[in-house]
């Protein structure tokens, strides 16, 4: 019987939510790693029972946990994220230089074909990879050593590499996004990188041709169209149809084009989801109404999805890694809030219901479709 497993990272542990394909009745397991901040939990497409989690904290640093039984049991694996060579300097908030310093893992991206290979995006921004199931992690230093590195600066959450997309048709191509440096692409498996930020416009960056400096919040791709990328930037929703070489704005009629996550429907490559947030200083939905916006036209024309979502007095946020889709015949959409709710729609966003309401603040939501 098919079903879904929703992997939820929160400020105080991880939770695993499971249901059959109807997605009406849910079992909630957790907290796993109680007391730890879990920025991300991810499942291997190559073996759905292989899960990786990234608990961290200000006191005791970074831990990586691995499960080989779908999250029933976990074991710590390697947690040494040492930069290759001398890490150099990047810009601090005040424009002074500050050496690269590892803080935490933000995102884990397992290989689609090998359960032991996982990419990790970290703060301060760098890309690491394990090929032994998490026992050891090695940096792909070509990204951090890109000549623009000394110009990179942190976003409000830190200078983090938060998004990793592995091209489904080209094993040598990887896209990553860094706040607040922008988007980078490699076409040689991670050895060399180029910034792909042309067309992005950001307040405070006077030149439209600036190579880096953009606070990209999240990227999404439909696997059938790997040349098309969707982006939620600090402000602006964008798309590229040439693998990031050029970007154009698709914010259209959104009530606010500020936000964090962006997702693409599993079966409709031009159906895109965002959660508009009032502004960079007001991290809550406009008018206290929690609305997911859906575009069925690849952007520009958006419709609010409200059925089942709170439409008054709602002042939560939805963070960048906290929205995901399943691949069941009727696509399911999921997102978690800083108020601890995880909402699910089993009908492409038309109707919503909470799976749980009172978790710790949700940092990430990933979905595994189980067969």
């Amino acid at each position, binding site marked *: 019987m098919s079903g879904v497993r929703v992997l939820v990272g929160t400020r105080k542990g991880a939770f695993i939510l499971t249901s059959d394909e109807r997605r009406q009745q849910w079992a909630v397991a957790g907290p796993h790693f109680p007391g730890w901040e879990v920025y991300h939990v991810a499942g291997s497409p190559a073996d759905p029972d292989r899960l990786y989690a990234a608990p961290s904290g*200000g*006191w005791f*640093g970074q*831990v990586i946990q691995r499960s080989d039984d779908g999250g029933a049991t976990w074991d*710590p694996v390697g947690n040494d994220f040492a930069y290759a060579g001398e890490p150099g300097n990047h810009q601090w908030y005040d424009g002074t230089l500050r050496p690269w310093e590892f803080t935490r893992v933000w995102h884990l991206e397992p290989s689609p074909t090998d359960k032991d290979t996982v990419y990790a995006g970290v703060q301060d921004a760098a890309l690491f990879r394990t090929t032994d199931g998490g026992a050891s992690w090695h940096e792909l230093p070509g990204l951090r050593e890109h000549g623009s590195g000394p110009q990179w600066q942190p976003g409000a959450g830190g200078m983090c590499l938060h998004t990793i997309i592995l091209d489904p048709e080209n094993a040598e191509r990887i896209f990553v996004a860094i706040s607040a440096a922008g988007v980078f692409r490699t076409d040689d498996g991670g050895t060399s990188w180029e910034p792909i930020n042309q067309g992005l416009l950001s307040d405070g960056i006077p030149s439209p041709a600036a190579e880096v400096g953009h606070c990209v919040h999240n990227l999404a791709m439909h696997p059938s169209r790997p040349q098309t990328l969707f982006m939620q930037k600090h402000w602006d929703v964008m798309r590229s149809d040439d693998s990031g070489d050029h970007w154009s704005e698709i914010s259209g009629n959104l009530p606010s084009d500020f936000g964090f996550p962006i997702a693409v429907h599993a079966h409709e490559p031009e159906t895109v989801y965002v959660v508009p947030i009032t502004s960079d200083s007001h991290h809550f939905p406009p008018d206290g109404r929690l609305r997911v916006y859906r575009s069925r036209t690849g952007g520009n024309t958006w419709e609010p999805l409200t059925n089942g979502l709170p439409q008054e007095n709602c002042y939560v946020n939805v963070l960048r890694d906290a929205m995901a889709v399943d691949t069941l015949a009727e696509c399911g959409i999921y997102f978690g809030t800083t108020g601890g709710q995880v909402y699910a729609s089993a009908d492409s966003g038309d109707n919503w219901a909470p799976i749980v309401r009172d978790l710790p603040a949700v940092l990430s939501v990933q979905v595994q479709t189980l067969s």
Partner: protein
Amino acid sequence: MIRVELPAHLRQLARCEREVQLEVDAAVTQRAVLDALEARYPALRGTIRDPVTGVRRPFVRLYACEQDLSHEPPDTPLPGAVADGTQPLLIIGAMAGG
């Protein structure tokens, strides 16, 4: 036998009781005790001190015999009461965050 008390997060990670007992063959110093602790519980590597530099993590404090030993050099001998097992070495997460 050296006695070490761990905070809740690390007990959970190492899957051990509040107090663990360790054999330390060399001189009983912070470094020797933490080396023995990490050898017994590899999951704790990197959680108390930086795995590369060996420097204590900023929000981790070390106490014994009602003394704050956090800023003692890592190769300074620990108090005799820790070395003879009368008193535990306390590893504590600093009060922070409310």
